[in-house]
């Protein structure tokens, strides 16, 4: 067993193919008016990274303020604005579109053997909507911010704050439509654009996960849209639907809001789970254990995800019966999530594992997501939830799932597909270091917050009692390590664009259709539409293909020569 599966072409002769989606057309307009899903994915990647670092800087400010018990770095209302903007940016401008709009956009058509998404212009429109939403958020920040928390809870957001609820609401509304269009595009593409022979149960699990997430985007996001419209109208002309003084009910807002915003966490995590399936299979050289179960568990998460929203409202005055039912339904979501974790573990069992960076991030995902998921059970149990809700326990829980889970998956995916997207390898050693730094920094940052929460430190305050300081210092120190862990990839990935080793078509020896094309791919992805004649993750098929190629080349020395000349030229 070798300690790496990376097989690169001979670096002295290998070249990046002259004709690819990056070089086919040039100029700014060719990017801004493109219909190519790969280019749109790159546009998304740049804009998402931009907002991630704005949101990250805000997180840095939060941790810096919490270094000391007093509210001394900023005024308390500024602190409210900072954590609100952190939440809004990270959720609506980073987590929701992160994997789907970049990796999903880039690879779903390639994985199913299509030339593009079904609706390329809608795809471009969704990027523009995202950008408009992003600009509105930036406008909100420079014009005074908003301090309701990312949940816009009524009647706070409708009656009691003077900050820019309207511009933030509009930003979320527009970014929401971007998400709806992405989801709609994915569903249509997966239904209608599959290559011959690409049946539903030959789809990579990445595609299944995106299919499930897309259902949530399409069904959930419009409800958020109408909830925000109602908040805006309540704030401007006082329609009274959420105003108790007029007979309205603020709780209705929470029902509508969480009807989207709970499924939204599955919109965020499901595509990440798709990435992990691809990475685990590739680096253990095995078909995913229980393929069908993993595929259906994605759909099950999407379906169950729609019936658990009220667990965000256990202390908000809903009836005891509702608490009971929603608590039970919440526990049910743990089942499909556990199916995934178990099946990934069984896939690794007796696999030929090699520890490249994507797998390190995937391991980070599995461990941290499991902790995040298990602590979710504490919160789904109504008795413990009453003690733990609105404390740092909740903050730690969703950061374990979203940052420890989703962000790890995003980084795993970026490293995994970087050779395909750019044609060049990232530097292996330093990226392994970055993965380890991220993992350590993450645990230092967020694990102490579980303890703080159990001890009773409430969330969303700039000041806290002095006895909580030690753990808060731990957390802030960890955040600086985490920050380094996130900056490193930006630096070395940018470096690799020019200096990275030439990756060749299939550096990981992976089985997906996207790896059977040149890197970076052609604008039309495939020279001819592939015909899928084997199951997903069939490594024996890959071996047979490579053997056949070797035989062809071996029998015909001229051909070998021609190939070398061609690749040199």
């Amino acid at each position: 067993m070798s300690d790496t599966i990376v097989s690169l072409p001979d670096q002295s002769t290998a070249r990046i193919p002259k004709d690819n989606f990056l070089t086919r057309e040039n100029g700014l307009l060719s990017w801004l008016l493109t219909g190519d899903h790969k280019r749109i994915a790159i546009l998304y990647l740049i804009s998402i990274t931009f907002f991630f670092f704005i949101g990250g800087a805000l997180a840095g400010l939060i941790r810096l303020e919490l270094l000391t018990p007093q509210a001394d770095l900023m005024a308390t209302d500024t602190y409210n604005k900072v954590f609100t903007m952190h939440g809004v940016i990270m959720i609506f401008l980073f987590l929701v579109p992160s994997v789907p709009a970049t990796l999903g956009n880039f690879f779903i058509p390639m994985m199913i053997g299509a030339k593009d998404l079904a609706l390329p212009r809608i795809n471009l429109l969704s990027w523009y909507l995202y950008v408009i939403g992003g600009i509105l958020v930036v406008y909100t920040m420079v014009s005074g911010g908003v301090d309701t928390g990312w949940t816009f809870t009524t009647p706070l957001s409708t009656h009691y704050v003077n900050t820019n609820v309207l511009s933030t609401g509009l930003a979320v509304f527009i970014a929401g439509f971007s998400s709806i269009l992405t989801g709609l595009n994915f569903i249509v593409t997966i239904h209608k654009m599959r290559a011959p022979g690409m049946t539903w149960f030959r789809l990579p699990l990445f595609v299944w996960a995106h299919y499930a997430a897309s259902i949530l985007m399409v069904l959930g996001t419009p409800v958020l849209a109408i909830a925000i419209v109602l908040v805006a109208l309540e704030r401007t002309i006082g329609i009274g639907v959420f105003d108790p003084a007029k007979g309205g009910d603020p709780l209705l807002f929470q029902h509508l809001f969480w009807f989207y915003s709970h499924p939204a966490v599955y919109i965020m995590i499901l595509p990440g789970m798709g990435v992990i399936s691809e990475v685990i299979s590739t680096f253990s050289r095995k078909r995913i254990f229980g393929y069908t179960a993993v595929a259906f568990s994605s759909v099950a998460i999407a379906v169950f995800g729609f019936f658990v929203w009220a667990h965000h409202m256990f202390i908000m005055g809903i009836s005891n019966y509702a608490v009971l039912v929603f608590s039970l339904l919440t526990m049910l979501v743990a089942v499909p999530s556990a199916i995934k974790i178990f099946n990934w573990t069984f896939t690794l069992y007796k696999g030929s594992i090699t520890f490249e960076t994507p797998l390190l991030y995937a391991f980070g995902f599995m461990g941290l997501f499991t902790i995040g998921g298990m602590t979710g059970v504490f919160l789904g149990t109504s008795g413990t939830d009453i003690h733990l809700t609105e404390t740092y326990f909740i903050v730690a829980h969703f950061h374990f799932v979203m940052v420890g889970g989703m962000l790890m998956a995003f980084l795993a995916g970026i490293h995994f597909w970087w050779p395909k997207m750019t044609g060049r390898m990232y530097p292996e050693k330093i990226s392994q270091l970055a993965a380890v730094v991220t993992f350590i920094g993450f645990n230092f940052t967020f694990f102490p917050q579980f303890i703080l929460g159990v001890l009773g430190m409430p969330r969303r305050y700039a000041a806290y009692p002095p006895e909580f300081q030690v753990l808060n210092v731990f957390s802030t120190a960890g955040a600086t390590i985490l920050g380094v862990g996130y900056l490193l990839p930006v630096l070395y990935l940018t470096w690799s664009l020019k200096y990275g080793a030439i990756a060749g078509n299939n550096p990981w020896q992976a089985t997906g259709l996207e790896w059977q094309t040149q890197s970076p791919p052609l604008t039309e992805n495939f020279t001819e539409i592939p015909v899928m004649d084997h199951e997903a993750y069939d490594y024996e098929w890959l071996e047979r293909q490579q053997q056949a190629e070797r035989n062809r080349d071996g029998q015909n020395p001229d051909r070998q020569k021609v190939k070398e000349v061609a690749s040199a030229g």
Partner: protein
Amino acid sequence: MPDSSAIAHDAPEAGGIPHGEHPPYLRHHFASVEQQADTANFAMWLFLLTEVMFFGGLFTAYLIYRNWYYPAFVAGSHQLNVYWGTLNTLVLICSSFTMAMGVWCAQTRRRSGLVLCLILTFILGLGFLGIKTIEYSEKIEKHHVPGFHYSLQSFLDPDSDAAAKAAGDRPLPLDMARHTEVYFSLYFLMTGMHALHMIIGIGILGFMILRARAGAYTAGHTTFVLNFGLYWHFVDIIWIYLFALLYLISRHGA
């Protein structure tokens, strides 16, 4: 599931149809015109699904408050003019008919028929909005628009109000009468959101009339007309529900 025999789609044999042999409206990433039309149609149905969810939030609010403030909702519905409402329903159903005829004309390549149908749909859509304006102005005159000028007069003292008197309303207690404002909030929200969809639809219709005159939809590529037809029928159906919920239900209750 052993479904290796199932072949997904009618992609072309080996490399696709050579360029120049396919109709100009076939976009490069589709294998065939059927696949393209099928895809656009499916996407439209999904979009309508998101619209159902969007209106779903409003219908949810309506159901909850109707249960809580039933007498106020009954008294509120007595203030709506059921004759204008019925007329508007008829106008919309007629417009759906002309739209459906338009789709048929496009599919059978009748250019002047298509233009005529679209213009009729356009006029009927405007007619609906006109009647809606008359209804809204009645509400404004009677101070039934939620907000600072909202008046409870018709509900506290039904005898002073012709519509309430005709329906035989009895005076509501003050706290229930106040909740008629929630009813009118929902009335304006739901019909307003519907009217917004109508306005968008009429705008697109105007664009389509110009394109149809140039013969854009009668050369075999009818996807746009077909999808717009789905949208128009959907907006029509939303109105049918609104008409029933806001005007008709419990009209003779309480």
